[in-house]
C-alpha cells in the first residue's frame, strides 16, 4: 500500500516540474531540440536515397536491410524531437497507446505479408488440362 502512495507522490511531483509552468499538457519545446531532430532527419533521409540512387552496394538485400534500418531510426527521431513523446507525457498514456498501436501494426503487417506470400507460393499454376477438368 505504501508503495502505491509513493508512486502517486512521484507522479505529482514529476508533473509539477513542467506541467503547471505554462499550459498543462503542452510540450516543452526548444530550438536545440528541433534543430537536432531536423539535422538527424536530413542525414537519415539523405543516406538511404544516396545508397539507392548511386547503387553503392551491389547486393540489393543488404541495401534493403540498411534502408529499412534507417527508416526505423528516423521514425524514432521524429517521435522524440518533433512529436515530443516521452514516457511521462499524459501520465504515460501516450506511450501506452503508441505501444499498443505498434503491436497491432506489427501483427497486421507481418501477418498479412506472411499469409499472402505463402498463399502465393502454394498456388499451382493452372494448366489447360486442369481447367478442363475443373468442377
Amino acid at each position, binding site marked *: 500500500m505504501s508503495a502505491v502512495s509513493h508512486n502517486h507522490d512521484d507522479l*505529482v511531483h514529476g*508533473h509539477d516540474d513542467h506541467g503547471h509552468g505554462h499550459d498543462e499538457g503542452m510540450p516543452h519545446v526548444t530550438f536545440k531540440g528541433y534543430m537536432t531532430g*531536423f539535422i538527424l532527419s536530413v542525414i537519415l*533521409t539523405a543516406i538511404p536515397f544516396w545508397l539507392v540512387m548511386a547503387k553503392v552496394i551491389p547486393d540489393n538485400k543488404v541495401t534493403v536491410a540498411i534502408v529499412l534500418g534507417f*527508416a526505423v531510426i528516423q521514425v524514432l527521431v521524429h517521435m522524440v524531437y518533433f512529436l515530443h513523446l516521452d514516457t511521462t507525457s499524459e*501520465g504515460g498514456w501516450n506511450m501506452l497507446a503508441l505501444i499498443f498501436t505498434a503491436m497491432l501494426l506489427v501483427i497486421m503487417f507481418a501477418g498479412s505479408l506472411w499469409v499472402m506470400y505463402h498463399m502465393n507460393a502454394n498456388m499451382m499454376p493452372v494448366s489447360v488440362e486442369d481447367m478442363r477438368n475443373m468442377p
Partner: protein
Amino acid sequence: MANTATMNNASAQEFYLTEEHHVENGTMLGFWLYLMSDCLIFACLFAMYGVLGANYAAGPSPKDLFDLELVALNTSMLLLSSITYGFAMLEMARKRKTATLMWLAITGCFGLAFLGIELYEFHHLIHEGAGPQRSAFLSAFFTLVGTHGLHVTFGCIWLVTLMVQLHKNGFTTVMRRRLNCLSLFWHFLDVVWIGVFTFVYLLGVLR
C-alpha cells in the same frame, strides 16, 4: 492492516491531487488516440501495398515509373515544412504573433509545394497510361500515396483556418491547444511519409 487508518489520512490528499491532474487535459490525449487510429489506417494500406505491390499485370514496374530525384525533392519539402512548423511553435512559446503567423505561412507554402509535386507526379503517371486502373500494384500505390496526400491537403486547410483564428483571437489557451494538435498532425504525416518513401519508392526501385 495496522496502518490503514494512517494511510487513509496520508493518502487522501495525494490521491485527490493525482485525480485532479488527470482530468485537467483530455484533448491532447484524445487527439493522440485519433492519430494512433489514423496510424492503423495507414498500416492497412501499407499491408495492402505489401501484398499487391508486385502484381504488375504485365504493366510497368516501380523501376520503370518512379523518379527518385522528384521523390527526394518531395521528401525535402515535407521535412522543411516540419522544421518550420517547429519554429512556429517556438515563436508561440514566446507569444510573438506575427512571427508565428509568418512561420505558419511558410509551413503552408512547403505543404502546398509538396502537394504540387505529388499532383505533378500523379498526372505524369496517369498520362503515361500508368493510372490506378492499370494494375493491382498501381491501384495500391495510388490509394496509399493518395491517402497521405489527402491528409496533407486537409492539414493545409486546417493550417489556414488556424492562421485566420490566430490572427483574430491571439494566443488564447484554446488557440495554443489547437496549434499543438495541428503540430502533432503535421509531424505525424511526416512520419508516415518516411514509411512511404522507404517502403514504396526506395524498396520499389530496388525490387
